[in-house]
């Protein structure tokens, strides 16, 4: 009997660290001091915001929009937090990118008053969404109607929980459902280039095709 998939939801409660930065040097200094939770919030949890625009994390967003250091914003946006084994390594490379930029452009502008970078962190509450899928068809239905925070929890947050290797969906599709091809399609979705809604569409498309194939091979008329 294959293992069922329990959909969960999460809610984050924002906490202020009380630290803020008005320019790049202050940002760099604070980056060296803030908690791992603050770094994680401003990078991994960027996707929980739902409206992905030009950037892939809050540091890049601030560099691009508030102090208009576009080159640095591009470089910070290209840092893939899921490529790091630890927050310490991620922290080191974020600081390194700012250091390099300051060497090349030693007089960056200050943010306007009120537009400083505020370091926050979160407490995450996780709870069952009340839906459990025992097969691919049930999984497909649940995916269509799952709340955005469910997608975030299983697609993004899972990468941190599972050591940056995979997400909950593709792991279940591979191990629980023995569908390595569908799992590979889900795993190949670029987490930085989508909103939670377009991620839902991609996963639904991949699973829907597989359900149809299964029905065809079982001779079920459609």
């Amino acid at each position: 009997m294959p293992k069922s998939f329990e959909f969960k939801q999460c809610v984050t409660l924002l906490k202020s660290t009380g630290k803020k930065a008005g320019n790049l040097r202050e940002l760099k200094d604070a980056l060296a001091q803030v908690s791992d939770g603050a770094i994680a919030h401003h990078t991994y949890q960027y996707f929980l915001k739902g409206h992905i625009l030009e950037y892939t994390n809050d540091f890049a967003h601030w560099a691009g929009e508030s102090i208009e250091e576009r080159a640095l914003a591009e470089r910070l946006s290209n840092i893939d937090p899921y490529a790091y084994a630890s927050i310490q390594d991620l922290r080191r490379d974020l600081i390194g990118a700012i250091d390099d930029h300051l060497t090349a452009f030693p007089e960056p502008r200050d943010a306007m008053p009120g537009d400083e970078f505020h370091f926050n962190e979160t407490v995450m509450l996780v709870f069952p969404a009340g839906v459990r899928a025992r097969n691919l068809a049930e999984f497909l239905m649940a995916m269509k109607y799952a709340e955005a925070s469910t997608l975030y929890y299983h697609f993004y947050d899972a990468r941190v929980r599972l050591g940056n290797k995979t997400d909950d969906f593709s792991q279940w599709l591979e191990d629980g459902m023995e569908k390595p091809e569908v799992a590979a399609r889900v795993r190949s979705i670029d987490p930085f280039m989508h909103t939670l809604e377009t991620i839902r569409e991609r996963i639904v498309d991949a699973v829907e095709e597989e359900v149809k194939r299964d029905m065809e091979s079982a001779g079920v008329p459609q």
Partner: protein
Amino acid sequence: MIDEYKNIAPKGDLMLLGKLGETLRSRSFLHVNSTREGGGVAEILHRMIPILRELGIDARWEVIEGDARFFDITKKIHNALQGNEEIMTEQMWAYHGEVNERNAKKLNLEADAVLIHDPQPAALIHYRKGGIWMWRCHIDASGPHMAVWNALKRHCEKYDAAVFSVAKFARALPVEEFIIPPSIDPVSEKNRELTAGEIDEAANRFGISRDRPVLLQVSRFDRFKDPIGVIKAYRMAKKYNDCVLVLAGSPASDDPEGEAVLNEVREYASDDRDIIILLLPAFSDRDINALQRMATVVLQKSLKEGFGLTVSEAMWKEKPVLGGAVGGIPLQVVHGVNGFLVHSTEGAAFRIRQLLTNPAMAKRMGERGKEYVRTNFLITRQVRDYLSMWYAMEHRGKRVLDL
């Protein structure tokens, strides 16, 4: 009562409320503020307390009493936190403490969790009898008059946690600090669905012609809300887009300049019959609701702002919003997604033209705005956050909590 929010609030929020209600069932949650009527805090507590009770929580709301001298002092503290230069003498602080002490003797302050709203009752912390005590600051304290803040801080840092509406409103304190934005109530008179007849009736009564697009700003007649800038932007936009402008609000009763600003606005509007200036009495919630629903574009072109919940109110009615990039407005308006953030009168005029020329874009932004408010700024989310904070404070140090 919770049933009223089914099919309105996100399902996940209601589920989590249910879970937190089970976990915290029969435990006591006390709110204390300084007024039973008037103001956003009282308005939201009137709705929140019954919701908490329905969740099984023993919720209570106490109001401190004070005389005119006390409230003069607390008004000064409020203004000083917002950055005004105010002189607060030691005697004033002593009186603030005395009134708090008198209230502490009268009120039942025993509860598992206590949320004290704003500076007026902040000194009650010295009379705590147990439980988790949290101080909720509804004011933008990002640039306070420092002497006053330092004196108030003596109370704030005795709490277990402090809560601010926006990260940039917060002050560094040696306690846990949570960021919980305020919210609107979707079933209240100000935000509930209105019939076409109700909207038409209001339009007729106010003499608003709806054969052309309606631009609207709802705000006090206060220079920080930039009503003159709104008229200028309307005039620039009107060159290519015939429209009417409605400025609705009340003179700021606690602002001696209110009358002067209103006269300036009237003079500046001159004899333009397409500018409608409405002075609304207090509790005009249904009229504000109708005005927001008949608007094509809603402006909140503030130069300085608190959280600016009128933005969420308009977004809930599927209106694209042009907001000044100040206070809590950038937290609500996602630029280019559900509205536009503007930094100048010219910017506002340009965005009005864009929205009036492209109704499909305006509609799309309005729809996204409503969804954004549904996810982030409904009262159910605020109740959820208060209970989550209480739960998190009982599990201090944990970053992930399984329920």
